[in-house]
């Protein structure tokens, strides 16, 4: 009963401030890209909820990260391993100059839950420089966002790269 009442209330509210939600979500995604390109690893991890997962499927047909091959399937603990590794002075492959640049766009809110949680789809293009070589990765993000008093937190980020199936000239070292 209570649920029903909530829904009724939530609907007009969403219509009224739909634009604000779009704006807030875009800001969130842009900020995530900014944090990533700025190599602020801990800030990046903090954007995830405690049960959050960063997932890059091995193939586009996959529907869950659990129990299937994945290019990334990391909870916050594994993300912390990755962060600590990249920061370690003896991460030999990470010492030479490298950097990334993300552009995020085509942001579409796919689902809005009564409690404000969202499912958001977007597209990205990432250019990476490693030593003297440039690589490009592009694809789509699917964010399951949880609304918290401190702002959105990522419960699940699914990353489908269009070139995920192509052979990798070298490998991926941090999240895309």
């Amino acid at each position, binding site marked *: 009963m209570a649920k029903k009442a909530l829904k009724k209330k939530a609907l007009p509210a969403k219509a009224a401030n739909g634009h604000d939600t779009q704006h807030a979500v875009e800001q969130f995604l842009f900020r995530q890209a900014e944090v990533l390109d700025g190599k602020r690893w801990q800030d990046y991890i903090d954007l995830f909820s405690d049960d959050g997962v960063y997932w890059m499927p091995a193939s586009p047909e996959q529907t869950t990260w659990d129990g299937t091959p994945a290019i990334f399937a990391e909870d916050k603990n594994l993300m*912390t391993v*990755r962060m600590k*590794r990249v920061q370690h002075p003896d991460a030999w492959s990470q010492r030479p100059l490298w950097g990334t640049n993300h552009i995020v766009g085509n942001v579409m809110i796919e689902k809005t839950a009564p409690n404000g949680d969202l499912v958001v789809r977007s597209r990205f293009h990432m250019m990476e420089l490693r030593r003297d070589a440039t690589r490009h990765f592009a694809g789509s993000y699917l964010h399951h966002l949880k609304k918290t008093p401190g702002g959105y937190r990522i419960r699940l980020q699914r990353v489908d790269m269009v070139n995920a199936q*192509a052979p990798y000239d070298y490998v991926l070292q941090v999240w895309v």
Partner: protein
Amino acid sequence: MLQQHTPNPAELVEPDRVHKAVYTDPQLFDLEMERIHERVWIYCGHETQVKKPGDYYTVQVGRQPMIMVRDAGGRVNVLYNRCPHRGSMICGDVHGNTGEAFRCSYHAWTFHHDGKLKTIPMMEAGYAGTNWTRDNPDCNMKQAARVENYRGFVFASLAADGPGLLEFLGPSKIAFDDICDRAPEGEVEVVPNCFRVIQNSNWKIFLENQLDALHPSVTHQSTGRAAHEVEKMIEKRTGKAPLAYHMLSAFATVTIDKWDNFQTLNYPHGHCILTGYMGLRPQDPDTLAYEKTLTKAYGAKRMEEILSTNIHHVLIYPGLSLQSPLQQLRAVRPLGLNRTLTEIWHFRLKGAPEPIYRRSLAYYNLVNSPSTMVNADDLENFWKIQVGLSGDGGDWVSFARHYGRDIENNGVVETAAGMGTSEAPMRNQMKAWAQYMTAGN
């Protein structure tokens, strides 16, 4: 002719060092393809990659584009990916199902799954009076000279002569026995996903690294440390960290001085085994349940034997690395002098409980995927080696560590106790290399 343009392979390999030309000379690379990769047994794929008739997977053997295909009779054939008419490639996709026959996209010649010609459009009228008749073998897609399958693992040799597959594998066949025997049903099934990663280095550099017991604690220090820190953090919070952390932290907890405790066993033809170091037989409920299933299938004694097989991984020269206890397989395909493709697969043990598969999956995702925190630093080393060797800073590469101290027994070279970091595997590989390269000279 040959001697004028190509360095003489016999002069490049000494017992404890090799000349850098073996990694940097383009003519030697061509000779390697001719005398090694296009002669010896090369792994094509697992038969469960092609389950139904018409299922195919393309694969590179030496410089040759090939097709592995299942026929209606259940046999797995390996064919050259070339149309006998005007030479077009038959399969343009990496894998798929070709239906009842292969059909060339240029003029629609069709072929059975064993490569035999099926139809040519208007053949009678078009070829009357020529020798292009149905019984002319020139009308067929060419088959690999020899194909053999050991416990589901399909190999091809492009040379009609030479040792059979089992003779070639010798004691290294234990890799396939170990991976299959760990399955209660005695078989494995491929997980249909292949990660493909390019190495910007010569193919031999990867193979030499596979059994290099001195490098892990140096090269993989950062990941080992990071994983160990988080592992301890989780243990503090919940009492127990997932096994995946142990797989990574072992790189730091097994310090450089401990690697001499392991052993490599080096066999004819360049094959080699590195004994286990990860201690993957914890006594948790999942492992115990698995042991129970195995005991039911094989009896207690055999179960013990199977699970105490002491292997980290097995290298089958010149292009396959099999990590049987974790069901990982890496096939190495040289694409050029300093460009090498690795194809990375993992397997399910048929009949084993799901949590055992999850271990293999965790290793596949963390260590062998394109986001690997381990191989990333190996690849960096391989590239640096390739660049280092192309300069004039020195002519020789040293494999002298613990040279003269290995123990030789019936053609098997074992590293001596406390000398596991011996560069015996590299010496053994280069010995095989020199034998192949000088055969028939």
